[in-house]
């Protein structure tokens, strides 16, 4: 006799208990603290904040701990938490021109006012495993100097003075809000940038890379990459002016791209833009390249059919929370649909078989 499998509830509870145990690992080993993750795995924390669209290093660290280091799972935890938060208002746009820069480099100019600041970068490290870290992670103190304060002009402004780069006129139009309105095509640049800044890093990197290899090539140089903190201000209607409510670390990348001109525009350089929470420069550069590729239409370029030029393709597939959920849902039972396919295939085979028999007989 057949007895149907029961006890889904018990199975789920047991799985959760086992998961918690696995997350903790061997209890002889000291447990990770949130502060340790926040301070020592800060680039993972930054990625979770960026793609989770929530600037909170402690919560991101907690999510990483809870997710056993699976960053997409951690991003998911942050997104699900974020949607439940009440919304008190919107900040003023941040001004990256007054960023307190930890890092600021330009690939297009040898030197620039304020100088090139390498900052805490992996760029020129030799990728040799440092076995000293396995034993003792203590580090000698790095040399320091006073932070530069005040205005840090953008490199693209120098090009702009000569009229060599496209104008980026100031625009006060409130941007659409991807988290409050359904995505709608065609998407304007503000909406595209919003989607890209929280897009999956790997997906964005792959698309950006594809443009470099010729799938919608746009000849990008890093005009400037800067990482640092900027103040966040909010307008308080009762006070009649904006007050600083905190600061966030951002990575901003402006690419300078070659453009041979179109029917309406003279030959000049064009721009790609990336702005991402935290120190996330691979993502910011990728974002700028993809942004530039998606601008083909407004710049009067040809659509060569490259994936990175296709806004619907990019925007509908860049979100790793949507993607991972749908991808993994094929683990759920589908036996009702499978059964209906089974019946269909059997029927078609039966008929094909009958036909062959008949043909053979003829």
């Amino acid at each position, binding site marked *: 006799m057949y007895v149907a499998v*029961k006890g889904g509830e018990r199975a789920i509870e047991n799985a959760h208990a086992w998961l918690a145990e696995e997350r903790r690992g061997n209890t002889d080993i000291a447990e990770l603290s949130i502060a340790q993750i926040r301070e020592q795995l800060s680039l993972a924390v930054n990625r979770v904040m960026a793609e989770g669209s929530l600037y909170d290093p402690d919560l991101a660290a907690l999510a990483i701990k809870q997710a056993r280091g699976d960053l997409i799972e951690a991003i998911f935890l942050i997104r699900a938490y974020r*949607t439940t938060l009440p919304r008190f208002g919107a900040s003023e746009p941040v001004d990256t021109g007054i960023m307190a820069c930890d890092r600021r480099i330009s690939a297009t100019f040898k030197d620039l006012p304020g100088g090139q600041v390498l900052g805490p970068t992996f760029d020129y490290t030799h990728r040799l495993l440092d076995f000293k870290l396995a034993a003792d992670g203590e580090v000698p103190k790095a040399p320091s100097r006073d932070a530069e304060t005040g205005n840090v002009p953008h490199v693209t402004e120098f090009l702009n003075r000569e009229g060599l780069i496209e104008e980026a006129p100031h625009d006060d139009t409130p941007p659409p809000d991807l988290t409050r309105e*359904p995505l709608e095509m065609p998407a304007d640049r503000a909406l595209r940038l919003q989607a890209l800044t929280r897009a999956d890093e790997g997906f964005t990197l792959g698309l950006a890379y594809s443009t470099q290899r010729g799938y919608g090539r746009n000849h990008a140089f890093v005009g400037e990459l800067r990482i640092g903190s900027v103040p966040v201000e909010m307008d308080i209607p009762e006070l009649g002016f904006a007050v600083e409510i905190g600061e966030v670390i951002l990575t901003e990348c402006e690419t300078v791209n070659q453009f041979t001109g179109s029917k309406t525009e003279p030959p000049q350089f064009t721009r790609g833009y990336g702005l991402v929470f935290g120190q996330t420069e691979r993502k910011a550069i990728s974002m700028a390249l993809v942004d530039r590729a998606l601008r083909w239409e407004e710049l009067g370029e040809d659509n060569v059919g490259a994936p990175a030029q296709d806004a619907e393709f990019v925007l509908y597939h860049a979100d790793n929370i949507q993607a991972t959920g749908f991808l993994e849902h094929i683990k759920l039972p589908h036996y009702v649909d499978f*059964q*209906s396919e089974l019946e269909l295939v059997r029927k078609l085979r039966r008929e094909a078989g009958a036909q062959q028999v008949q043909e053979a007989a003829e």
Partner: protein
Amino acid sequence: MTEYNFAYLDEQTKRMIRRAILKGLAIPGYQVPFASREMPMPYGWGTGGVQVSAAVLTPKDTFKVIDQGADDTTNAVSIRTFFQRTAGVATTTATSDATVIQTRHRIPEEPLHEGQILVYQVPIPEPLRFLEPRESETRKMHSLEEYGLMHVKLYEDISRHGHIATSYAYPVKVEGRYVMDPSPIPKFDNPKLGDMAAIQLFGAGREQRIYALPPYTQVVSLDFEDHPFEASKADHPCGMCGATDSYLDELIIDDLGGRMFVCSDSDYCEARQATGHKGKDAA
């Protein structure tokens, strides 16, 4: 976080979903865009259905959740527990006792009655999506009522296989206007969509769409005069309750590939067995 709002979602989100549901009911079969929220379960696992349920549930409701027709499948259990916890609703497995039923892939066998709401979880709400991947294009096609591509596809099936080779998520036309995806229910369930006494609501979370069928709405499965639509199922009685009118799951019961067929609707099957119906495989 310690306290969740009733039915988890915040009130502003619920209002937005409720407005979309009303527009969906006013324009049967039309997919209303809505700003789907991230839920504490993954996209593709019923977030659309969960958001719709959260927007319609009241504390007085009795809630039933099925996946593949059964109440005890793990994802059904998980969703039912979620609403027990966040909305404090009573739950049931009995189809006739439920006021709100959330479903994945099936319509219950027992006819639903007035006062009930059936909420479908929908993965891909756009019936034209696999013919045209672009949302901007499919939206235009719906607006122009341009469904020729769908008929061409179905007819190609017929010329190649002698039959329409779509066995689930079989497209329907609603009130002679919108072509609609009924969610991945087997086409066996399609005839139940039309003229149903209950309200049918469809939620697609990842794709950010809600659509609806008011009660007693005309729903026609697409077909051709020379190839009329046929609701099909495995040609067996249920091994447990002997039902001949229910949709069946096929089970492999031994290493030799021995098989039996059992109702996919667990409540229907158990209720029949409780009233003395017995199939050939029942003890």
